[in-house]
């Protein structure tokens, strides 16, 4: 039977949410050592026992599962990896099955499916607001059951969900945009430039390094915007951060699963016009261990990415009620090039050959010859970000001169000229403990710009979900931190058009997304600028 996952605010989802609350309650009543318990399932994503004790999630006398279970199941979440999407799909599927079993046992429908939260829907103003069912401390009216009598605590509510705004928690619009859907390739280019849709090539990898584009946004942004940090607390202290802000606690928040259902849906949307990797290391991966989940009966279920590609067929058997692309896919050379020339020279918005790849090109995953990115600028020292922070990036004069000359030619001659190189900003070695932090990154703002920051200068967002673990020198990433790659071609083009030539330095400004983010304190070991031949 193929089941349908519905948007959380759709009429069809109302009943699904009520049963979800019941199932969460049932799973929460199971002990930690039970593979189908709420806590065990959350620990599969991540657990830091000391933090769970400190938060009161588990008590000192709790019976831990056998060491073999901990080793096989816990702390598996794949981040900053090309396994990010398939691992979370399998994880969500295992969770949904266990949840459904609890729903059925409680008298609910056999076709129950997990709802998803589409916060990126720009046609509905309330889309970015946390759904009411998660914001009420006590059980919503009409949700009473034998297991949950009237006035019971709402299982979908958690205290440690702080957000960045006064209630209701609302996600900033900059953190839910869907540029990721416009990327052509699942895996990024050399040095992660351009970044890929799904993440970089790794072995089994629980975090650290560069994000895939969908993971960067909306995934990471939403984690920080919903989890946030305790008002009046210390945003740099893990003990003051919301469950959703950190990988080691995110699975404890019931909204986590609806967030990830949406991320999973966006992969489905992307797959309709793009191709997953054909690389056997991905399809049959990972090494050196397998992805292992508990089945409904508590037995082990292992899977590879190749098993979870098509959601509509066995074993997954689910679809989404909306799988249409919310943004037009933009393929290289053609549409993107035409849009670029429209900005640079006021030329036509689309060229005759829009560069849409042929079926053959898509099948083979070949999108033209791969160019290597070239470094054209770098900061001279590490950058410490604490509140609004400016960083100067020194540019290599000969190469920047060549770039501006080519931009100038493109402005003068229009689409008949060769497309100038694309430009990328790479933030390397982002280290800190403020997982909840959300920042905006601006390029080339005038020195006196303070109040209204010009959106034309916005390079992108920076969300630090997972930075604590990635910065731990004794963790699986050896303290290497996170990397972030932002395409700044549009901003650089606009600077050129407005007569602000790139000189020998580029001003990069980090702006906290909210007052609570202003206290975040983290470092970036190097800010680099690369150009890439189109």
């Amino acid at each position, binding site marked *: 039977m193929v089941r349908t996952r519905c948007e959380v605010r759709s009429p069809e989802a109302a009943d699904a949410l009520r049963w979800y609350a019941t199932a969460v309650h049932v799973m929460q009543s199971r002990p930690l050592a039970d593979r189908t318990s709420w806590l065990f399932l959350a620990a599969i994503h991540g*657990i830091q026992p000391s933090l769970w004790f400190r938060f009161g999630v588990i008590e000192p006398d709790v019976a831990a599962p056998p060491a073999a279970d901990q080793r096989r199941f816990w702390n598996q979440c794949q981040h900053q990896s090309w396994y990010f999407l398939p691992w979370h799909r399998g994880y969500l599927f295992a969770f949904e099955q266990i949840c459904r079993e609890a729903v059925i046992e409680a008298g609910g429908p056999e076709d129950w499916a997990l709802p998803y939260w589409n916060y990126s829907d720009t046609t509905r103003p309330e889309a970015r607001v946390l759904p009411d069912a998660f914001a009420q401390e006590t059980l919503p009216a009409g949700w009473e059951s034998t297991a949950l009598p009237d006035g019971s605590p709402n299982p979908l509510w958690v205290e440690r969900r702080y957000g960045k705004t006064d209630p209701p928690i609302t996600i900033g619009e900059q953190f839910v945009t869907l540029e990721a859907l416009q990327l052509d390739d699942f895996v990024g280019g050399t040095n992660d430039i351009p970044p890929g849709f799904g993440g970089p090539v790794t072995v089994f990898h629980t975090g650290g390094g560069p994000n895939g584009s969908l993971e960067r946004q909306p995934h990471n942004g939403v984690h920080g915007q919903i989890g946030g940090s305790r008002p009046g607390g210390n945003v740099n202290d893990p003990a003051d951060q919301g469950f959703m802000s950190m990988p080691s606690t995110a699975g404890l928040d019931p909204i986590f699963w609806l967030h990830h259902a949406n991320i999973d849906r966006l992969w489905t949307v992307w797959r309709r016009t793009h191709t997953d990797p054909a690389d056997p290391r991905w399809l049959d991966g990972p090494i050196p261990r397998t992805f292992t989940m508990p089945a409904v009966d508590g037995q082990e279920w292992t899977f590879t990415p190749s098993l979870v590609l098509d959601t509509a067929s066995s074993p997954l058997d689910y679809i989404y009620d909306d799988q249409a692309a919310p943004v037009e896919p933009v393929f290289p050379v053609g549409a993107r090039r035409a849009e670029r020339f429209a900005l640079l020279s006021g030329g036509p918005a689309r060229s005759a050959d829009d560069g849409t790849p042929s079926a053959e090109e898509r099948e083979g995953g070949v999108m033209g010859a791969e160019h290597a990115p070239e470094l054209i600028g770098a900061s001279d020292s590490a950058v410490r970000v604490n509140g609004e922070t400016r960083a100067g990036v020194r540019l290599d004069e000969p190469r920047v001169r060549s770039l501006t000359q080519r931009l100038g030619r493109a402005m003068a001659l229009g689409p008949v000229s060769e497309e100038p190189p694309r430009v990328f900003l790479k933030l390397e070695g982002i280290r800190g403990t403020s997982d909840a932090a959300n920042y905006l990154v601006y390029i080339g703002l005038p020195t006196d710009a303070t109040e209204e920051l010009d959106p034309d200068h916005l390079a992108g967002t920076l969300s630090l979900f997972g930075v604590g673990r990635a910065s731990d020198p004794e*963790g699986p990433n050896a303290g290497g931190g996170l990397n972030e790659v932002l395409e700044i071609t549009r901003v650089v083009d606009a600077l050129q058009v407005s007569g602000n030539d790139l000189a020998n330095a580029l001003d990069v400004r980090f702006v906290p997304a909210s007052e609570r983010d202003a206290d975040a304190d983290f470092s970036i070991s190097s800010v680099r600028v690369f150009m890439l031949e189109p």
Partner: protein
Amino acid sequence: MRTRRLGRGLAAVVRRPPVPALLFVSMNGWAVMVWSTIGAAASHAEFRALPGAVVASSLHPTSHVHGGAATPVAFVMWVAMVLAMSPLLLAREVDRVRLSSLRRRRGSIVTVWLTGYVVIWLLAGAAVVPFVAWLGTDVRLAWGAVALVALWHCSPLRQRFLNACHRAASLRSFGVAAYRDALRDGFATGGACAAVCGPLMVTVLLAADIHLVAMAAATLALTVERYLPARTPRWRLPFVPARASEWPSARARAGLLRARV
């Protein structure tokens, strides 16, 4: 089917720069090692230059191998061994250094970085070759060294060095500072590499007439280990999976309760 697909995946890795260049260097190192071994089998002369031998001799009494002296040829063999075993461990590092450099300086910066790396290994060789020659004079000494190396591979300190190999330092890209950083990082990477791999190479030198097989096995183990994620430093057998999480002791939990917020 799965093996064939994984084989194709491996082929894709091998084709990606700078792996072909590094493979070329490695193959040259292997060629020298194989040539010297075959030559030794014919004349015994160069083979005696191998500084170790007694361990394998004790395993293979009919072997023609003898404990050797720290000759210049032995030092050349050490260099060949480093050339054979190291390059594949450096694919990530060389790529990082290359891509962190301005294009017109890539060649010189990578050369400076490699110089720093190789200097460390030459210094290590200057110490290791006479030491192994001394170990080769007595079976008990040699087996003692093998036991110590086994212990080293289980130690948290070695894991710290291995984790350091995973950590990418940030290199400046402009002026003299770019060369200084490259040299410093070459030293640091060479140092961490020597600490992680050097002791195992000592046992390879002691393996005498099976040293090519031992070298191949060591290369495979060290390469696989390098590309696996970092792990928390603690005493453990090599390649044994790490615990997913550290469960605090009862005392630690009581402390955490007091700190509960």
